[in-house]
């Protein structure tokens, strides 16, 4: 029995996935960088926010800004280390190095923040609002709003602004873009910082519902991967649609069958899609 509230909850979950996937898909599209540390940046977002709030007592929204800046800088440093590989499109090394980054981040986070699970306390988590008969917290509403606003903003920036044109030019042909006076290395660093900050934002927004461990991250990479490959690399709206669909699937499968096997079944579906269409479902 499919209920409307399951679908609404699914859309909230999907908005979270969409936030998670947005930076990754832009990064992959613009710099051809497959970032396996994405899930760890998500975790870092949750822990940095928690740490900033509990150490200094700053409010949630200030913690969010602090986290975005800090993890964004962290992402820029990661890309600076990866720069030569990115320039030569050495995907094998990029993948292994980002896996290494993820491993380092987990270890560092455990050393710095301790081995206990932590939960970010958001004031918006306390109050609920009724939407079509489904009780949602204001935090849920914030997640959906953040997803819609960020997707719209990214889409507009990528299509209409000068920054977007530069990023697209570098994605298309870095050497030619460089001849045209653009700086591909700065584009790569900027895009990575953006992707890292968005992953951190997702972590800081979604870790308010329950405690997270420093060991999380692999699931986030897989959900992101599924969304990006099905929705299309660098395709903002395609990613949003697939993310929402995956969210609704997660919610329905969790209620109707079993939440434990959601990832497994989802991934099985994707493998079947790959076997039929190895480039994903987007038109080339």
């Amino acid at each position: 029995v499919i209920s409307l509230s399951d679908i609404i909850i699914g859309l909230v979950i999907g908005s979270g996935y969409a936030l998670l996937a947005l930076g990754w898909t832009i990064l992959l599209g613009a710099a051809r960088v497959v970032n396996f540390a994405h899930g760890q940046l998500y975790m870092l977002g949750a822990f940095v926010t928690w740490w900033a709030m509990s150490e200094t007592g700053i409010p949630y929204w200030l913690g969010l800004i602090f986290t975005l800046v800090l993890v964004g800088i962290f992402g820029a440093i990661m890309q600076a280390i990866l720069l030569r590989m990115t320039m030569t499109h050495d995907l094998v090394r990029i993948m292994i190095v980002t896996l290494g980054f993820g491993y380092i981040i987990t270890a560092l986070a455990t050393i710095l923040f301790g081995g206990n699970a932590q939960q970010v306390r958001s004031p918006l988590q306390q109050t609920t609002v009724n939407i079509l008969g489904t009780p949602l917290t204001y935090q849920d509403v914030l997640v959906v709003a953040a997803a819609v606003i960020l997707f719209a903003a990214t889409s507009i920036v990528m299509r209409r602004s000068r920054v977007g044109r530069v990023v697209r030019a570098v994605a298309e042909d870095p050497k030619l873009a460089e001849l045209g006076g653009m700086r591909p290395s700065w584009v790569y660093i900027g895009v990575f910082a953006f992707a890292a900050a968005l992953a951190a934002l997702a972590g800081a927004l979604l870790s308010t519902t329950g405690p997270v461990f420093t060991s999380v991250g692999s699931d986030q990479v897989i959900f992101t991967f599924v969304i990006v490959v099905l929705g299309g690399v660098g395709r903002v709206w395609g990613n949003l649609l697939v993310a929402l669909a995956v969210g609704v699937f997660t919610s329905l499968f969790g209620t109707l069958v079993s939440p434990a096997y959601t990832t497994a079944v989802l991934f099985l579906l994707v493998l079947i899609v790959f076997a039929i269409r190895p480039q994903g479902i987007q038109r080339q």
Partner: protein
Amino acid sequence: VTNEIIGVRTPRRALTRARVLRWVVAAVILVVAYLLPQILGGSLNVYNTVITIAIFGAMVYGVDIMLSYLGEVSLGHTAMWAIGGYVTAVLGINLKLNPWLTLIGAVLASLLLAAILGLAVYRSRAFIWTLSTYAAAVVLSEVAANWQFVGGSDGLVGLPILTLDFGPISIPLQTVQQMWPVAFVVLLIVLLIVSRFRHSKLAQSSLMAHMNPDLAATMGINVSRVRFQLLLFSSIPPALGGWVYAYYRSYVSTDLFGTYFLILMLTAAALVGRRVLFGPLIGVALIISQQNLASLGTDGDQLLLGAVLVIVLVLWPAGLIGIYHTLKRLIGRAARKRGAIPEPSSSESAADSVPAEPNPKS
């Protein structure tokens, strides 16, 4: 064979003394390697360290083969290693099968997993391929953690002592001193298989498919099939490792699927250099020796392992062997300056540098 029939002495036969010498050296190395734990003092820690090195060393060759010969980063080999261990445990505990049968079961299960994965990613390449293997490993790990039949998140405990039956003789292997020969032999078997593989048609075809897939296809190589075959072949070493590891620990749990083994495999495969027979083993030996004999604590070791992986790939993409080649070149240059050695031909120096990624994918 024909030469022997018609009575012609082959050049190989002519070098009998050199060949004998090589066999003697190999035998001495083998004996020393076997006696290594005793040479190093024979303490419990030393035995555990060498056994772990042998088991993990065997396991690592799966990832190494994929990386060295296809240039693909496989993150699914943790699942093959884990499934080798899990099948051993299920067959040994639930069905009380003897270790020979659990060994066969472990290898078959790993091959089956590789076959299913291989068919699913048959046409995928590069990052989609890698991410698919990663997702397969994570998903299997979640299934193992939730499936009560394989013990759920607690894993399976109570695997009987490894008892090997050779006809009427039955040898129980309980202590680490008794366990060492088994781990040693498994490692030896993996090394033999890999060294045979290095000169095989499959290795050659894979390398061609890696370096230039279009050219390989033009030359009649079925690239997708070669990739599939290589994935199947590479699933054997981790299964063998998983089999011994299950008996060594006498239990299995979802940690076998964990990131630790994933990073260990990649670091060991990348540390020394690609296509170096003993490279992965040396890599594992360095890592495990540090962790067992000079540990910085769990998180410290993790930090170090990740840092080593990143530093090696960023600074010396060809691995430690690359440093060796650089040193050799520098020494050669210094010698040439003194006029001792003539300038090497360009082909020679080209052979020195291992191409990191010869065919960048768009």
